Every structure is written in C-alpha cells, then in structure tokens.
C-alpha cells in the first residue's frame, strides 16, 4: 500500500508537469498541443546532449538543457502557432502534430533511435531510496516529485502576484482586450509556450534520467492529456488533483484491478469526466462553448 501511494505520487508528478504543459498552451492558443509528448522527449535529448558536452557537470548541463527547452517553446510559438491564429482550431492542432513529426525526425537524425541514458554522462547515479512503510523509490522519482512541487509553487506565485503573471492570465482569457490594454500578448503567449515546453522537458529530463531515453517516449504525453481535461482544460489549479486522480486509478488498476486496463485507464477517467462534468473538476463551463 505504501509503495502504491509512493508510486502514485511519482506518476502524478510526471502527469502534473505534462498536464501543466497542456493547460498553459491551451490558455495561450486555445489549442491542444499534441506535440507535448515530443517536447518531453526533446527535453531528455537536450539533457543528453548537454551532458555529453559537459560530462560530469550537471550544474552546467541541467540549466542549459532547461534553457534550450524554453527557447524551443518560444520558437514553436513564433514560427508555428502565431501564424495559425485565426485558422480553425483543428488546423492548429494538426500543426502541433506536424511539429511532433519534425521533432521526432530531428531527434533520430541527430541522436539515432538507440536507447540512451543521460545519467551516464552526467556522472550521477540513481540509487533506491527507502521510504516509510517499506516503500522504495528511486532518487530521480523523488526529484520528479520535488520538481513538480517546485514548478507548481513557483507558477502559482508567478500567476497570482507578479504583474506579468496577471497579464498572462488576462491575455489567456481575452487576447484582444489584453492587447487593447497595452499587453503585448504575443510576448505573453510566447512565454506561455516557453513555460509549457519547460514543464514538459523538465518531466522528460527526469523521466529519461530515471528510466530511459528513446525517440518514442512521446506516447507518455498522449496519456497525460487525460489529466489536462479531467482537471479542466483552462485550469492550472485543476491539474494537480487531476494528476493525482488519474495516477491513482492507473496504479490501482495494476495492483488490484486488471493490469491490462492500466493502459487505457487515463482514457477511461477522461470518458467518465466527459460524461459527468465535461468542463473538468476546476474548469469553467464557458470553455465548452468556446471551442
């Protein structure tokens, strides 16, 4: 039981980071970013590359990889999403699919499709950590949880207190009005994309350090958008409880239900939520009409 709880927490952290990525982008562009999973993969490869460039210097490699990820988010917004403004939403969603294809192709071109382990270059190890109640998690499991907590705490403070954060929320609600109030919403949206890419990549760096790195890791992203919807597509606050819920259902179905169902369990959560409360746990009902 303790182990199941610990695992739930770890999986939820991964999902929460990915889910935050979806919601941030949704609020900026009203688009579901189907390349979010590939941004996770990309984060892993950035870490792999920076670790290979500065072997044994995680202090250098990690921030550099994070910066590269955020920069990617900005580039994606400027090059792909900004020109898609005003086109049908699904055309924009499709553009994110093509972005995913591009990222995967680029990764294979540069790194090949072999399984990699960034930790080997970083010179770090990933020893198991026993917890209370007999549960054991890996060191990077703990890092994942810590990263998620830190990211969300920072994000909430940023959005609640800083003027830029308030402007980001304003632009997310009404881009035109925000622009008329002097807010350069392109800048704000680019920042949203940067944060989103950063969150996804952060998850990717930790996951690939913890488990493995390969070009097809992006599938994880597909499962995590159940989280974004269960919490409410436009609600950052909803991501955390939704991630916990989806992760708990998934872990429980492996441990006490049918393990085969664990693969579809996020989608079952999603279906149930759509039937019961389609706008999500903490989303606003008006979003339903908006898309």
């Amino acid at each position, binding site marked *: 039981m303790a*182990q*199941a709880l610990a*695992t739930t927490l*770890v*999986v939820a952290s*991964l*999902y929460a980071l990915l889910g935050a990525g979806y919601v941030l982008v949704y609020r900026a562009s009203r688009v579901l970013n189907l390349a979010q999973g590939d941004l996770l993969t990309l984060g892993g490869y950035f870490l792999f590359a920076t670790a290979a460039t500065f072997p044994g210097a995680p202090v250098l490699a990690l921030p550099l990889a994070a910066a590269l990820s955020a920069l990617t988010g900005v580039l994606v917004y400027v090059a792909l999403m900004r020109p898609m403004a005003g086109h049908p939403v699904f055309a924009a969603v499709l553009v994110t699919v093509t972005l995913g294809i591009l990222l995967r*192709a680029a990764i*294979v071109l540069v790194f*090949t*499709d*072999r*399984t990699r*382990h960034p930790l*080997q270059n970083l010179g770090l190890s990933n020893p*198991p950590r026993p917890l209370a109640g007999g549960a*054991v*998690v*890996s060191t990077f499991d703990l890092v994942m949880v810590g990263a998620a907590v830190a990211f969300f705490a920072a994000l909430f403070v940023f959005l609640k207190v800083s003027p830029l954060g308030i402007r980001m929320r304003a632009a997310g609600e009404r881009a035109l009005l925000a622009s008329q109030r002097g807010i350069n919403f392109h800048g704000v949206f680019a920042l949203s994309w940067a944060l989103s890419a950063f969150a996804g990549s952060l998850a990717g760096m930790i996951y690939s350090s913890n*488990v*493995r790195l*390969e*070009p*097809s890791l992006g*599938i*994880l992203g*597909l*499962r995590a958008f159940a989280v974004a919807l269960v919490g409410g597509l436009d609600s950052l606050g909803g991501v955390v409880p939704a991630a916990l819920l989806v*992760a708990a259902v*998934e*872990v429980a179905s*492996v*441990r006490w239900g049918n*393990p*085969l169902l*664990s*693969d579809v369990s996020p989608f079952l959560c999603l279906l149930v939520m759509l039937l019961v409360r389609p706008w999500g746990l903490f989303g606003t009902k008006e979003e339903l009409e908006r898309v």
Partner: protein
Amino acid sequence: MRGRILSAAVGVLTLVAAHPAAAQAPEPYRVGMTAAITGPFSAGYAPTYEAYRTYFKRVNEAGGINGHPVVITYEDDRGEPQRAAAAAKKLTDGALLLINASISPTYKPVMTEAEASKTPLLFGGGVCPREAFPPAAPLIFCTTSFGSKWDSRMALGFIKEQSGTKKVRVGFAAQDIPLSRIELEFAEQHARELGMDTIPVVVVPGAASDFTPFAQNLKDAGADWVFSWAPWGVEIGVFEALHRIGWKGNYILYGHQPAQDELTRLRAPNLHALTGNAMFIESLPIHAEITKLVQGQTNHPAHYMAEGWTSAMVLEAGLRKCGWPCTREKLAQALSSVSVDTRGLRGGPIEMTADNHYRRATYYKVYRWDAGKNAIVSVGGWSKLDIK
C-alpha cells in the same frame, strides 16, 4: 505560384509512375527490403538496414557476386502494415527476393504480396514467422536469432538448469502486444510442463509511466525467476523496477541489441541476457572486422550490426549458389539448401533444408555481469537446440 505547386506535384507523380528501372552494366542482382527504418519501433530494425547496406557495399566494391553487383532497394515502412504492403508491392516489381526487417504486423501484407508474385521472402531482423519453421512454406525464409517458442524453451531450460532440484516459481513479463503476450502464455504453459510453479503473465503497456506496480505484482507473487520476452524497453524497465524495490530473484530476458551496453550499465549479477548472437565483448575476429567496416557508415554501434550481418551473409551465400542468371525459383531453391558459416557471430552454421527455412539447429548463449571480474561473462558456452 499555387498553380506551379500543383503542376510540380503532377509532374512528380508522373515521375513516380514512370520510375525507370535504372539500367547499368553489368546487370545486378535486384533485391528489395522493407524495414522499420523510422517510426516508434525503429531502434531494433534500423541497424539491420544499416548492416545490409554496409555489407553489400563491401561485396560490390569487391566485384559483386559472380561478377554482378547486388542492388538493394530499401523502403521504410515505419512499422505500419499498410505502408509495408505498398512497399512490398513496389519492391516485388523485378526483385529476386524480398527482405523484411520490421515488426510482425507487417508480415501478413508482405507475405501476401510475395506469394502473389512468387517472390522469395527473407525475414532478417524481425521475429521469425512460423511459416519458416518446419514444415516450411516454400518461399519464406528467416535468419533472425530470436524465434518464438524456441526462445521460451531455451530460457526455461536455462532456469531449470540453474535452479537444480529446487522447485522454482517463475513469473513472466510481457508487453501489451499480441506477439509478446502469446509467446509468454506459451512459456507459462511450458514451464508448468517442466514442473515449475508459475505466476500468470504480467502484461505491461509499452508506454507505462512507471514499471513499479507491475514489478510489485511479480514480487508479491513470490517469483524466484522472471522471464521477459518483449521489446527492450519493457524487458529492462520491469527488471529495473524489480531491482529497485529490493527483489532478490533472477531475471532472464532476450538480449536485443542494447543488451551488451545495458548489462555494463546496470552491473546487476541477477540479470541474464539470453541471446543467439555472440556479444562483441568476446572480441572475435569477425567482430573486429565488422567494427572496422561500419566505421563512418552508420550511426549505430558496431555490435548492433550482428543480426543484420548474419542475415546478409545468408543472402550472399544464396545468391552465390544461385549463380547467374539467377531467377526467383532458383534463388528459393538455393536458399533451401544453404549452409552458412557465421564465423562465430552465431553458435554454429545456419543450415536450411527443403522443409526447414529457419535452421537445422539454433544456438543460444546467456550473458550476465560478473562483479568479481568486473565484466560481462557468459554463463556456460553455446547451447544447441535442434529444430524439428
């Protein structure tokens, strides 16, 4: 502008339609390969494609076979059945032989095409279909080191041998693809026949966000041994999770290309890799030769080439035997009686017969990390399994 794009597209389509068979002298041996060179499964198959390319580059530079070069046309099916079908249709046009190095769902469509055009079909890199096993279908051949049923028999035999008289409880970790599940359900049944305790197969999604709960299930069920036969990610993922939660049993998995690196990375004495290819840590002359040849020709490490290299050797032998001019029927016949010395890449020669297009005997080795020697060691030598 747009009109031009349109006419360009039409022009290109016409080009595709009229795709001329490149005419050079001397006439080459034409072969086609469909492989999962990109796509989510490419890690296991792209190296086979690269091995073939490098191998026949050397053959052609050395004057070809019987004075004729070998021209292989490669198609990337991305592991998608429809794409493989289209690729097969394209490749059978004028090819002596079709090679498939892709995932099993591409087999049926490729076989259908090969059959329709009476083209021999060689599986090299993907798991062997049962049509290659005796009694073999006339046109289906397979060189891949791993093969369903044989691998499970071998792995379970190894477990039995290791545990001696002690009654062991065996768990199985499959991936949620039919191929892996069916194989391990067979293994579970076979283990019971061998008198072992078994735990029902644990099926793991390829994209599992965390392997721990699956590992916990195996641990809780009291597995002494766990056997995994699946794509690499699941095989090693379940092991690492078991290892982390303090499971003390033994683990055996099929040693795909990354096995050699991963044994070194993990340094776990209870992790066993069953494989049909000799690992490059044995530093045989052929290993050195391959390493030298692929330098700068591929992005993959040399030891990823073993699978494709062996397959290419078989094809070369078949073509030599076929002579010139070679036809599809003659090539099928030649392959049916081929005997290839793999120079140590495998435990013994690959010998095919009229009704056995797999090999008369298959050889396995088990490797693991030896903490004392600080190196990978093989547990015993080659074991031989007769294919009947």
